[in-house]
Each structure stands twice: as structure tokens, then as C-alpha cells.
């Protein structure tokens, strides 16, 4: 199994600003994913981040709003840019090893935009 940590655990930000969320895995993984969980809702995939290539975004999410970096096999960042109150959500990072169906989740970052 993999242990995933996220920073920050929570933040309160003003509209128009940006926040970068870090995701660290304790072992090398092939696939990393970023999800958003809006209040009272289920998880929605934002993008898939592979090391060495551009992130792949789901419909409704764009790189300008949610730029992602994946500099190595254990780390990724998600930036929420030009935030609005609608961006208030929990952002979760997950990871899986090559050929594995099992995914491990970080504890999430609870973002509130005022």
C-alpha cells in the first residue's frame, strides 16, 4: 500500500487568489489523480497526472484554472487559480501503481474561498 500526504490540510483564501496543493506519496507510483469533492457531493475527477507528460483533464476542467505539475514519481501539485467561492471544496489526491486497480487517497485539502 501507499501512504499519501497532502499540504495544506485546509485553507481559507480570498477570491481572485491562487492556492497550490501538494501531494506526496511514500513510494513511487505511476498514476496520480486529483479529485474535487464539493460540499455534500461525491468525488469528481479533475485530472490524471503522469510523470513526464502533460496532465489529462476531464470535461469541465481546464489547465488554466487547475494547472498540475508532476515532477517525479512521488510528488504532484494542483493549483487552484483565480479562486471564486464556487471553488470551495475538498481536493483529494490519489495514486496507483502501474497495472494496479487499487488507489490510495490522501486526507484531502479543505478549501474555503471567501
Amino acid at each position, binding site marked *: 500500500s501507499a501512504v499519501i500526504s497532502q499540504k495544506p490540510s485546509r485553507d481559507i483564501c480570498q477570491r481572485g487568489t491562487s492556492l497550490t496543493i501538494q501531494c506526496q506519496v511514500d513510494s513511487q507510483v505511476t498514476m496520480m489523480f486529483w479529485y474535487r469533492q464539493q460540499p455534500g457531493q461525491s468525488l469528481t475527477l479533475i485530472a490524471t497526472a503522469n510523470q513526464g507528460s502533460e496532465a489529462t483533464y476531464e470535461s469541465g476542467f481546464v489547465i488554466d484554472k487547475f494547472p498540475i505539475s508532476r515532477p517525479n514519481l512521488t510528488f504532484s501539485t494542483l493549483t487552484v487559480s483565480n479562486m471564486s467561492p464556487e471553488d470551495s471544496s475538498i481536493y483529494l489526491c490519489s495514486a*496507483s501503481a*502501474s*497495472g*494496479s*486497480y487499487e488507489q490510495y*487517497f490522501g486526507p*484531502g485539502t479543505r478549501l474555503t474561498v471567501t
Partner: protein
Amino acid sequence: AQSVTQPDIHITVSEGASLELRCNYSYGATPYLFWYVQSPGQGLQLLLKYFSGDTLVQGIKGFEAEFKRSQSSFNLRKPSVHWSDAAEYFCAVDWQAGTALIFGKGTTLSVSS
């Protein structure tokens, strides 16, 4: 499109009573199936998973789930619920290794004394 359905938005059970949470997935090839639990303010914890083999799988915290191919279902059960089981439960599926999970909308479990 591939989808996961959790028909029950909110369930309340008495402490000590049995529990069954329903999950159905869209038909097609058998996916890989998961149940996660999310306690208030917490991240997701994997309860159990089904990849192949015995269709009744055991998980943590006394939970089990049964895969029924004919019904495209993967229902979660627990024989005796504890107050600490109150949480949000998500069913998730994956049809291809290395791709993201598809989540159901979740079922909120409340436990009454």
C-alpha cells in the same frame, strides 16, 4: 457511459441492527469494485475491494460485500452496526487499470441509539 449508482442517499439504522448499502454499476465487462468510507472531516478509507474469485469479500471493521454479476451489484453489508459506523459510504468502480475510479454519489449512514 459507465456509471455507478447508489440508490439510497441517506439510511438510518439502529445500533446493533444489520446494514446493507446498495451499489449498482452500468452493464458491460465486470469492473473492479471498491467500497470507501469517509468520516466527517476525514479522507477516504478503503473498506474492501473485489477483483476476482470469491464473490463474497471481507473487509475491515466487520464489513463484507457480495458481487452479483447477474444484478451488476456490489452491496455492502454489516451484521451489527456500531455508532462509530456513522459516515458517508462511497461505492467506486474501475474498468481499466491505471485509470481513475468512478464514484457513486454516496450514502450517508446515520446510527440511532
